[in-house]
């Protein structure tokens, strides 16, 4: 598939979620079979990583405490950041890990059921990992935007129902 078409396809998938391949084909002026096989290919190449649903768990009544942890790593021969990151990202409490520039090395997003649970996770599991020099926790107080979507301030359709 053409590079530009492929990008268009990805954009439609990202924007519209799971709409039938038949509709995507029409929208992009492609054959249904082309769309199906391209999606399969994109999944295989892990360009499409996962088809997920964005959920506001707080609204769903779930108590979730999240924190961003700045992690400083002691540089050591033979042990790079990747190894430390790997030790961290396998914990189910860890939702995201990034290597960052600046005053610390890894930025880790964790989730727990309570403040205590989250704090204990940092103290007992994170801080004790070999080569982790220090941690600094920032608890998340409010979410404004996630995965490109503004939360809690949806722009409703304010238009009149019929306009000539």
């Amino acid at each position, binding site marked *: 598939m053409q590079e530009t078409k492929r990008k268009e396809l990805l954009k*439609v998938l990202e924007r519209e979620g799971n*709409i039938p391949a038949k509709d995507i084909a029409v*929208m992009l002026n492609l054959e249904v079979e082309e769309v199906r096989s391209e999606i399969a290919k994109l999944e295989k190449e892990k360009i499409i990583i996962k088809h997920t649903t964005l959920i506001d768990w707080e609204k769903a009544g779930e108590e979730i405490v999240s924190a961003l942890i700045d992690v400083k790593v002691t540089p050591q021969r033979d042990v790079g950041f990747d190894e430390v990151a790997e030790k961290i990202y396998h914990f189910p409490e860890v939702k995201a890990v990034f290597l960052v520039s600046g005053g610390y090395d890894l930025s880790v997003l964790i989730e727990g059921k309570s403040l205590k649970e989250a704090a204990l996770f940092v103290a007992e599991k994170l801080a004790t990992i070999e080569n982790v020099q220090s941690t600094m926790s920032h608890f998340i107080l409010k979410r404004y935007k996630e995965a490109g979507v503004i939360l809690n301030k949806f722009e409703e359709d304010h238009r009149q129902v*019929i306009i000539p």
Partner: protein
Amino acid sequence: MKNCEEYLAPVINKIPPSGIRKFFDLVMNAEGVISLGVGEPDFVTPWHIREACTEALAQGYTMYTSNQGLPELRQEIAAYLKKSLDLKYCPEKEILVTVGASEAVDLAMRSLIAPGDEVLIPEPCYVSYKPCAYLAGGEPVSIQTSAVNKFKLTSGLLEKHLTSRSKILVLSYPNNPTGAVMRRKELEEIARVVIENDLIVISDEIYGELTYNGSHVSIASLPQMQSRTILINGLSKAYAMTGWRIGYIAAAPAFVSAMVKIHQYTMLCAPVMSQMAALEAFRNGKDDVKQMRGQYDQRRRLVVTRLREMGLDCFEPEGAFYVFPSIKKTGLSSQEFTEELLKKEKVAVVSGEVFGRGGEGHIRCSYAASVTNLTEALQRMENFVRNLSRGLNCRGLKEKAR
């Protein structure tokens, strides 16, 4: 005192009551309706443009501007017209910022029409031209375009309606409600007739940026046509800025100064905060337009395909965000169709004859709606049309039995 009606100017009675009022109330009183009847973008104005307005307010931009509009904005408009249509206009003398294309249409008519002058209006078309022509003391002359010609105006059709009083031709392409566009070749044919018969063109190009399969051509850009054309455009559709009320006129200096005469006393100027937002739109909004156009185009294909699949004849619209399928096959009038569709399936579309007599037998479906809403609405329409054809078959059989 007599009845209030008796004090009204006679011209008011020439303007028929709104063709959608009753239907509007029906839709308002129904629940769970998906509306494909909205003639404005479903997108909200891009954030950076909104921010330019709040910033302008914070800086104290709360005053009048010059009658013609902010000089910087007129410069941006001139630059845009040069870049997109290769038309050169002088920002000082040939551009006027208006309160929407709506005001622009009114100004154009009022500055040109002498009592009894005929205004040629190809239909189906946007609803404001005929009333504005009446209000200016003119005589609107409807020209019925049809699906056979893809709802384009042809030179033959135009010539058939010419009289010694013909003065103005209104062109509105890309067209609301049909989605028709006129390409260069087709415009050349029209320009020939316009020049031969010494007409002035009011060209409403508000949907120009929403042209698919090619780019918009203005009749003003054809040889000898710039001085004969009052070019009208605005930010409502391209930038999703309907509520801001910013439009503009580009025309010869004598036309612009005549229109400024009216505008300065009736409107004074367009709102300054909207003009500041428009400035931002021209300077940094090109990508937004491209993005939105891309999405409209995808939906356009989706809607046309689905309408055809359900058996409705539907010519391919190449502009704006409307599809105008024929519903003649169903045996219902446009109005019956829209009211039944609303009642049975809770989908609102606009009846074709609202846009002129020639629109009868068609409905206008706007695809300024999310893909989710479009697919749901189309599914419901398909159910409706399918049930209808079953019902019709039954009726046909019964009639045969009798």
